């Protein structure tokens, strides 16, 4: 790999993997919770939650990135408190890249999990409740295992999106090699330079290989899980 990738590119690849993995992992619990809420709750204001979740999809990524900057930047209206009280800042850090990737991929994850939850037969959950399980126990012992293929689908969609995300990321954390330069940012830089298509294509190829690898593995896992659920 060393002779294919420059050290900076290698760093970018590693960073992309780290950012995508953490973005997906960290947003998963929230994603499952929001999906369950949207699928099962009848709360009146829920459409607002739904709309907010979808926002990053609707808006051009740059706008989302800019909004993140205004919110979580060092002077952002949340960021300033994080900075002041926790000494923690997202802006121009890899954590910010992860935040951007998480936000951008969140609607995809939520939708996939939500569809899976809506497909679960509530009669099974009722059966569990007559057997003594509380709502939370029912969720963890019945609902969650049943939606696992959907959760995996949501994670892989989110991971793919996170691997490709760049508009919001570059806007929020810039494109500093070795620090916040993810694979897509590196690709983008190359694309802005006339005559660097080959380098861009090479990085794009690596990105594709990684994401497709993750995709194939996840499909395999999801199929096995689905088979276990289906019988045999």
């Amino acid at each position, binding site marked *: 790999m060393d002779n294919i990738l420059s050290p900076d590119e290698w760093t970018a690849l590693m960073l992309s993997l780290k950012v995508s993995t953490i973005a997906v992992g960290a947003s998963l619990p929230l994603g499952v919770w929001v999906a369950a809420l949207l699928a099962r709750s009848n709360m009146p204001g829920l459409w607002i939650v739904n709309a907010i979740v979808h926002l990053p999809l609707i808006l051009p990524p740059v706008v989302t990135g800019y909004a993140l900057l205004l919110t979580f930047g*060092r*002077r952002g209206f949340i960021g300033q408190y994080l900075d002041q009280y926790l000494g923690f800042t997202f802006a121009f850090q890899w954590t910010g890249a992860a935040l951007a990737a998480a936000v951008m991929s969140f609607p995809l994850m939520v939708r996939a999990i939500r569809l899976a939850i809506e497909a679960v037969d509530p009669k099974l959950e009722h059966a569990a409740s007559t057997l003594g399980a509380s709502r939370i126990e029912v969720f963890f012992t019945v609902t969650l295992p049943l939606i696992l293929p959907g959760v995996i689908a949501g994670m892989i969609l989110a991971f793919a999106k996170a691997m490709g995300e760049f508009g919001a990321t570059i806007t929020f954390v*810039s494109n500093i*090699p070795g620090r916040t330069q993810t694979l897509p940012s590196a690709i983008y*830089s190359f694309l802005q*330079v006339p005559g660097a298509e080959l380098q861009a294509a090479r990085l794009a190829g690596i990105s594709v290989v990684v994401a497709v690898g993750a995709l194939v593995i996840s499909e395999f896992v999801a199929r096995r899980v689905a088979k276990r659920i289906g019988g045999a």
Partner: protein
Amino acid sequence: DPVIFAAASLKTALDEIATDFTAESGVKPLISYDGSGALAKQILADAPADMFISAATDWMDQVEKAEYILPGTREDFLGNTLVLISDKADPVEIADLPEKLGSEHIAMGLLDSVPAGQYGKAALTHLGLWDKIEPQVAQAQNVRAALALVASGEAPYGIVYKTDAAAEPKVHVVATFPEGSYPAITYPIALLKAGPDAEGAKAFYDYLTTPKATALLEQQGFEILKK
């Protein structure tokens, strides 16, 4: 190591200069390339950058006004030239452009935001061609995209910087816009207060004006304004 924010059009030259600089000094500039506007906005949001090279003066003005610049370090660094390109080699009289274009398109940077687009519009207006050409302008996200539209044959003509045209072998410079038909293209440079490595930045800042560095920049088609 110093963090440098630089206009994307500088990437080829600046990367090479940075490599040489690292070899000589052991300091590795981390260069973040993007549109000048995007970079300026990040600086205005406290981005930890040591140095900014913008492709347009207005964004540098914004940064200066907000007092992010180390006083006395802003200078006009580079100049560039606006050219008309085509995927064919035949030279063209700019005045004939509307006819040559027919119903086809001319690729330019975004007229409101990409400096190359703003300069192009100014030049065409100055030459009295703007009204005829305006409906045929395909605005690209950046100079690179405009080049690609011409290189792929999508648009027969495009307006880009001389430096961009030099880097894409599939396009030819078929005319150069007369000096004075558009405001001078200047790339201001400045050191910033907020960066992590002011010393390294200063060293790189100085290195940029060494003959070795300027030779590389000139080779790419830039004009050196700061000697």
